[in-house]
């Protein structure tokens, strides 16, 4: 299948909408497995079409323009109007004076409100991080027995010794959460898990999630009870993190 055929036949869109015949679908899949541009196109199309379907078009359709009301003021209302304007002006002056006098108190109240809001934002951020970790763990099918995935957060330095995690019998995987050091701002990482001198798990091509962390699932069958070391490397480059943990069963 050529690019010209794909463009003329709007093949990518038909593919995303599930409207290609089997032979054409297979041919297009084989094409985009080898073509970066077409793979990019098909991903954007899928997002675009799904995005259009999700958009609530009613809410963003422009409302019909409402004609501006025309106000006709009879002659006898004009003095009354002027009087009302004068009263508004007086009120405005009084209000402004009250505001100046009360400025110090208001400034203090604003500062207090800001502090409360910052505390709330910090608590929200921590809660979101916790939720992201739990969602990441839930993205992997849970073992049939316990229904929960063991999750361990690895840190390069820990004041309270080597972290330990119990992996229940029947667990399919262990989730590891790592935060690469800020200095190591690479695009892709590789994680190696060692038991003694043997590399028992190697996971290349890891990318940070929206929290800047790496969330990784390691098959439980690879982790017997014992001491482990996890080395974090820039993919194809230097080591940027070294973590230790203990597995108990």
């Amino acid at each position: 299948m050529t690019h010209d055929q794909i463009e003329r036949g709007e093949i990518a869109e038909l593919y995303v909408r599930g409207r290609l015949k089997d032979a054409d679908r297979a041919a297009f899949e084989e094409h985009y497995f080898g073509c970066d541009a077409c793979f990019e196109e098909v991903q954007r199309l899928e997002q675009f079409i799904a995005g259009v379907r999700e958009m609530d078009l009613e809410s963003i359709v422009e409302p019909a323009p409402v004609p501006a009301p025309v106000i006709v003021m009879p002659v006898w209302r004009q003095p009354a109007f002027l009087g009302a304007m004068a009263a508004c002006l007086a009120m405005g002056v009084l209000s402004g004076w009250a505001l100046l006098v009360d400025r110090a108190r208001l400034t203090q109240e604003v500062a207090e409100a800001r502090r409360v809001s910052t505390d709330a934002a910090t608590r929200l951020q921590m809660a979101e991080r916790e939720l992201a970790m739990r969602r990441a763990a839930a993205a992997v099918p849970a073992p049939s027995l316990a229904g929960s995935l063991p999750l361990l957060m690895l840190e390069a330095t820990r004041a309270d010794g080597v972290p330990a995690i119990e992996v229940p019998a029947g667990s399919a995987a262990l989730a590891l959460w790592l935060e690469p050091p800020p200095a190591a701002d690479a695009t892709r990482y590789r994680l190696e898990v060692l038991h003694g001198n043997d590399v028992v798990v190697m996971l290349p091509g890891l990318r940070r999630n929206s929290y800047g962390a790496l969330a990784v699932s390691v098959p439980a069958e690879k982790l017997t009870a014992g001491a482990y070391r996890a080395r974090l490397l820039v993919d194809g480059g230097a080591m940027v993190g070294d973590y230790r943990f203990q597995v108990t069963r």
Partner: protein
Amino acid sequence: MTDHEQLVSTLHERFASRIHFLARRELRSQAVAEEVCHETLLRVMQAIRNGKLQDEAALPGFVVGTARNVIMEVRRKESRTAPLGERDVAEDHQESPVDHTVRKAMQQVFAKLKPREREVLQLAYLEELPKEEIAARIGVDPERVRLVKSRALRSFRDFYERLTNNSPKTSLQTGRGDHLGEDR
């Protein structure tokens, strides 16, 4: 890096996202797509090491064929398992392609579209009408319908790329890992 590690890394770099994309579309599950991805790469790697693939040009076709086989096996396995009520498992995480970035980009696209252009997109993608019928309904040339869709897509692509270039991305990555040192 050893040859083996290099091979793993290269295959992953070239094909993981494509396999994952295909599997997610077919199986509607992020978690199962991850498993299909790793199983496919494992089989491809084994085939390469066993000398079953000599021509690199044939690699994309081989990979997609292997992925389709793995997907079929998953489907057959799922159809043989017990009904959901008899299993004590967590629900698979089914992910839509529409995330926060896509929504933001779509909002920006739609804010710039004229009402008639929005109508074209609605008729094309919500009501799934062919472009000739859309053209007849709103009184324009079918080519104009195609142009509206194409421009909206281009606009979405631009906004999306701008938004993603400003923020890191991703999600949980799962894997079987690779038991180094084993002769497969």
